[in-house]
Every structure is written in C-alpha cells, then in structure tokens.
C-alpha cells in the first residue's frame, strides 16, 4: 500500500515510495533500447601492432566478415594510421564500426616517435567531439562519434617479455584510451610458455605503471565472469578466415602439417574469450569509459590549457563567459597591435620604394644629360671637320683655277710658237 506521509517534506529530501499497483514505467528500459535501435550504434577499435602480426585477420575473424584489407609494406618511413568505417547489421542492431590500423608500426630504424601519430589521432578525435560540444548550434545526437573506444595492442609472441617499444607506447596511451593487450599469433607458443609469458607481461605492465583496461566488476550479473577474465589477460589469440573441416563440421582454423589450430576452440586459444569480453559483455562499458573518463580528462586538460577555470584566484566561481570575455579582450588588443605593426611596415615599405624610384629617376636624368653633351661635342667636331673640308675645297678650287689658267697660257704660248715656225 502507499505510504501515507502527510508531513510536508523539504524540497531536497527524496523519500522512497511504494506503489499500490502497476504503473507501467518498467517499460522505460525498453523505450530506451528501442530508441537506440533506431539510432544505431557506433564502435571504434584501434589496432596497434607491427606489420604482419595479424591485425586485419583478427578483425575479420572477430566480426565474421571480410573487410577490405591490403598488405602493407615494411618500408614505411613513418607510422601512419588507416581508418575504415563499415556498417554491420545483426538481427535488428545496426553497428557503425570503424577499424583503425597502424601502418608501419615497428618497422622504422628509429622508433622513438612511433607512438606520436597514434596519440595525435586519438587526440584529434577527442578534439572534434569537443568542438562539436562547444558549438552554439550543435547536434550531438546526430554526431558520428569517432572517438576510439577500444585499443587492441598486439604483442608479438616472443615468449620472453614485452619490447621496450610496447611499454613506451602503452604508457603513452593508457590515459587516453582503453587498452586491451592481446598476444598475437598465439599458435606459436606452447601452453606452458604461454602461462609464463602472460605472467611476465602482466608484471611488467604493473611495474611500469601501465593502466590497461579492467573489465568492470560493479554489475553483479557480469562481475563473476569479468573477474575471471581479468585474470586471464592478455588474451592469446589466433585469427583465421579460412575454414577447415574438422570432424563433420567446417570451422575457422589454421591448418598445419602437424595439426589444426581451431580459432573457436577455447583450449586452443582465447579468441572466444576476447570476442565475448570485447563485444558481448563490455562494449557498452568501453564506450562509457571512453566518454566519462578519457574524454573528460582530455576536455579538462584542454580547457585548462586554454585558460578557462572554474574558480578565479579568489576561489569564486568564474563563469565561462567571464573567462571568455577576458580572453577576447586580450585577443582584440593583440589584434590591434598587429594591425598597427602591419600599417607601420606598409608605410615604411612605401617610403623605401619611393626613394628607390627617385634614385632611379635621378640616374636616368644624369645619363640623359651626359648623352646630350656627347652629342653636342660630336656635332661641334663635325662642324669643324666640315669647315676644314670647305676650306680645303675652296683652296683646291683656287689652285685648280690657277692651274687651268696656267695651262691655258701655256697653250696659247705654244700655239704662237707653232705659228712662228711655220712662217
């Protein structure tokens, strides 16, 4: 029966109340689930591992499909990431799966910066989500969430211990993404070696302070299986898309001359466990951890970096607007300063150009004068020459006239002589 509590309760206290009959809000989880089915789900996996360690094959096996894969070469100069998105559907659930593979990880001679592209990629996804969240007009429910929800780190099956590259990379990533380490190509390790290997790996991770993803223990329905699985980390997996007939069934397996390694046989490898933990039991928790822990951490750091605070030095809550306003003023002042600088620079350049032009003009002018002078000089010289020539001509003319006269006189003299002779 309903609890009849007549005394008025203060606003903040919440009292439990019994219901007298069936109200019907137990259908709320169903309503929520139906809405999610309509919207579809989103899951992003990042696979980090050396080239050829079996990342793509494992993804194919895990999701039972054939993703478009191509083998990458071992000669990549830098680590790159390749992201591919797929729409999968199983019964009425639509999943938008994004698989991000590293290309060229561990192939370079100098692996110091190998982790950086991965960290950058993860940060970029957080950044674009943060941008969307901070927009004025935003549409979060339509937003395609590209943040990395799970990171499968492929450990190569050396049987000894983790490589230093592994430790460094995992240490950089453990605060940004849920790391699930897996031992790849587990069919090359024997059972006893595997057991020792797993212990060594876990102890190394612990001693280096790497926080890998722990399956959640707070829900009683799955706490037990999660605790068991936590103790079996890292999972030793084998991937295969080829089918081999074993007994009277076709199973996914790898065929060797000495036997067949069945992927879905729990005594052969931990593939089934991985699939169960990653997809069937904890997918939602992975997404939630990414959003509430890793993304919030990123957001907090980013906003603090930008100078926003929740409380100012007097410990009074500062609204985002006030900080924003202060930053805006700073920015406007800086903008003004830059504008002034630019203006000054412009004026200076103009002056320089002007003086250059003036110099050029002056130079041209002097050249012109010089040429003019040269011209005048030549003209004068020519005049002189002409005068000389004229003088020469006139004197020559005179001499010629004189010579002709002389000749004429001599002719007449000769003619007289001839006459005289004839007489």
């Amino acid at each position, binding site marked *: 029966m309903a609890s009849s509590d007549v005394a*008025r309760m203060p*606003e903040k206290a919440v*009292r439990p*109340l*019994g*219901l007298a009959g*069936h*109200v019907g*809000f*137990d259908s*709320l*989880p*169903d*309503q929520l*689930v139906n*809405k999610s089915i309509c919207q579809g*789900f989103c899951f992003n996996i990042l696979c980090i591992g050396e080239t050829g360690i079996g990342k793509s094959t494992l993804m194919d096996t*895990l999701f*039972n*499909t*054939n*993703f*478009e894969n191509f083998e990458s070469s071992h000669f990549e100069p830098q680590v*790159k990431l390749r992201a*591919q998105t*797929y*729409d999968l559907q*199983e019964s009425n*659930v639509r999943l938008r799966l994004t698989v991000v593979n590293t290309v060229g990880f561990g192939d370079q001679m100098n692996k110091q910066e190998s982790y950086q*592209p991965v960290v*950058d*990629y993860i940060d970029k996804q957080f950044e674009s989500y943060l*941008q969307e969240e*901070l*927009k*004025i*007009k935003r549409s*979060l429910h339509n937003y395609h969430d590209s943040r990395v929800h799970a990171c499968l780190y492929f450990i190569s099956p050396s049987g000894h211990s983790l490589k230093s590259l592994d430790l460094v990379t995992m240490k950089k990533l453990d605060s940004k993404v849920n790391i699930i380490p897996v031992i790849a190509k587990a069919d090359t390790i024997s059972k006893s070696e595997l057991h020792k290997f797993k212990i060594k790996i876990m102890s190394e991770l612990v001693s280096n302070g790497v926080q890998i993803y722990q399956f959640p223990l707070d*829900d009683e*329905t799955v706490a037990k299986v999660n605790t068991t699985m936590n103790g079996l980390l890292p999972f030793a997996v084998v991937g295969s898309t080829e089918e081999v007939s074993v007994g009277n*069934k076709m199973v996914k397996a790898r065929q060797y001359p000495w036997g067949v390694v069945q992927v879905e046989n729990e005594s052969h490898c931990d593939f089934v466990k991985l699939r169960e933990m990653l*997809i069937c*039991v904890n*997918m*939602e*928790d992975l997404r*939630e951890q990414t959003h*509430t822990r890793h993304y919030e951490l990123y*957001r*907090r750091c980013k*906003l603090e970096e*930008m100078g926003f605070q929740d409380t100012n030095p007097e410990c009074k809550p500062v*609204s*985002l*607007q006030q900080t*924003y306003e202060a930053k*805006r003023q700073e*920015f*406007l002042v800086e903008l003004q300063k*830059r504008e002034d600088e630019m203006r000054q620079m412009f004026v200076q350049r103009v002056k320089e150009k002007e003086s250059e032009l003036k110099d050029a003009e002056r130079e041209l002018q002097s050249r012109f004068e010089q040429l003019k002078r040269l011209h005048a000089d030549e003209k004068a010289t020519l005049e002189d020459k002409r005068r000389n020539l004229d003088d020469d001509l006139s004197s020559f003319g005179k001499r010629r006239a004189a010579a002709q006269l002389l000749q004429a006189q001599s002719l007449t003299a000769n003619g007289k002589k001839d006459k005289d002779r004839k007489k």
Partner: protein
Amino acid sequence: MSESAKPHHPSPQGKGEKTHASDFSYVGIDAILEQMRRKAMKQGFELNIMVVGQSGLGKSTLMNTLFKSKVSRKSVQPNPEERIPKTIEIKSISHDIEEKGVRMKLTVIDTPGFGDHINNENCWQPIMKFINDQYEAYLQEEININRKKRIPDSRVHCCIYFIPPTGHCLRPLDVEFMRRLSKVVNIVPVIAKADTLTLEERDFFKQTIREELRANGIDVYPQKEFDEDADDRMINDKIREMIPFAVVGSDQEYQVNGKRILGRKTKWGTIEVENIGHCEFAYLRDLLIRTHMQNIKDITGSIHYETYRVRRLNESNAHFKSQPSDHPAVQPKANGQPEVTPSAPQANGVAAKHEVMSHEM
C-alpha cells in the same frame, strides 16, 4: 595521417544460420542491447513533471492516480487566507519509486496559486523563470571544467496543463499560458474533472480546443515537427486526434462487478478511472508513462534545452560584442586564415576567439 574509406556494407551472417554445434556465424553485436538495458537499470531514471492549473481542478489527485501512490499532498489547509499564496509558488517534491527492478526518481512540481488571483496577468512568469532556471543549472554544470559523471537532470520534462471543464472554449489565461510555454517545455493539456461533461459535450469541447490551439499556433506534445519517421507520425497523429485527454482522477477503490478498481462513487453510478469508456485516463497514462516517456525526455533534452542554450550563448556573445571595437568584419590573422566575428549565427560560441579553434568556420 589517416584516411577513411567510404562506409562499406558487409554483413555478418545472421543468427539464423547457427549450426547446431556452435555459434559459428554469430558475432554478438546484438548483445549490446542487453548491456544497455543493464546499464539503464543500474543508473535509474529521472522524470520531472510539472502540474499547472487552478486550485481545485484535481491536480494532486491525478498525480496520485497516475503513479498509484501519494506523490502529492492534497492541499487541505482549512484557512482560506492561507490557501491562495500571494505569488505563485513553485513546490517540487521528489520520490524514489521502483517497479520490477526499474528505479525512477520522480519529481512532481506543483504550482499553487496559478490562476487563482483576481489579476492573473503575467502569472506564467514565475513558472517560465523556474523552467529556465532548471535549464540554466544544467547548462552551468555542463560547461564546467570539472563536471560530474552524470549531470543531475532537474529540467522539467513535461508540463500537464489542466483545463477547467467549462464545455465552451479555452479562456484567455489558458491560451496565453500555453502559447508562451509551449516554446520552452512539452505541454500536455488535459480536461480536468471530465465527469461533468457528457460524451457529446466532451467531443465538442475537445474539438473547439484543438481548433483554438491550431488557430493560436500552439504546438502541444506530441509536436508535429519532431516526428521522426512515418511510423512515428502515424502513432502521433492518432494521439493528436485525441488530445486534450478528458481525465478523472481518484485514489479510492470501490467494488465494481466483483473487482476492486479505482473510481469515483456517486449516487448515479461509479465512474471507473481506468475504463476508457468512461474517461481517457488510461490513454494519458499510456502516453506519459508506458510509451512516450523516453521520447518526452529526449525532446526536452535535445530540442528545448538546446534552444535555450543557443539563446543563452548568443546573448552573452551579444553582450560582449557591445565593447567598442573598430575591426572590420573579416580580419586576416597572422597565419593567413580569415576570422569571423561572433555575430555570425553559426559561429562557435565559447571557443570562437581562441587561436586553437580558429580554423573552425
């Protein structure tokens, strides 16, 4: 650094192809539904309902009938001077209720004094302020740097407005209130004390109300513009044909035909509350609780709250824009990318000016 291919559509073989020995082709993606359900049950739900109407219309009784427990205390103050508060008060009471493992924190917000004064102008103002205050509180928490894992949701999801059963048409007070508040919150109008109307009167009244709502441009829940697809529209159209629901509330049980049911006993008969031949309480309950509760919360969260947020962030931008500045509209920055002033309607609010985000257009 990374490229992405167009979405590709390989599909794993469905569950129907299981071989008898093992889950050969089964991946397990649909187990996520179960995970979501578990998470929801663990977290619990929150619902905030506001009831608005003149005193004596049966608001508290209806709440008690809806949730089958004493969620509201009926106003039984004997003193008439005390009964009508000077200004409209907003009283919110929360309860934790549980049914079949589903826990819900129900908050009922009562508004005594609404419409009870002689001069009821601006009676909607305190209510509007309360609703906006809840949005503000949520916004402040959301823009905090260190924010809680789960922001406590005190936003009003649904406002049930009680229309007195005059049988004629809506009063100016009703029209005014619903017109203003339908823009900020989901309003579900109900005809209170519907046992005073005969069926023909009730139909006529409902039709008049619907026409008046349409004529005044009042969009009550379920709003036409938020229908998602054809199925939704079909279901919602049926509901829209029936609103406002004519309800009768009761928290007393009587013996009818050998069964104990909730009802009101009068000399001329017993009105059964949950009998859809008598009144439409069952439809209201189904709408609010059994089928559309999640939808109501979603519309509050993604549409009404976002509208408030846009308005609020734009306001603070406009306020800061009134500082003296002689910058032209587009200013080349040192690194060569143009910058847009905050007056552009699509600009980023908080982060617009920061250099890190300057590439965002």
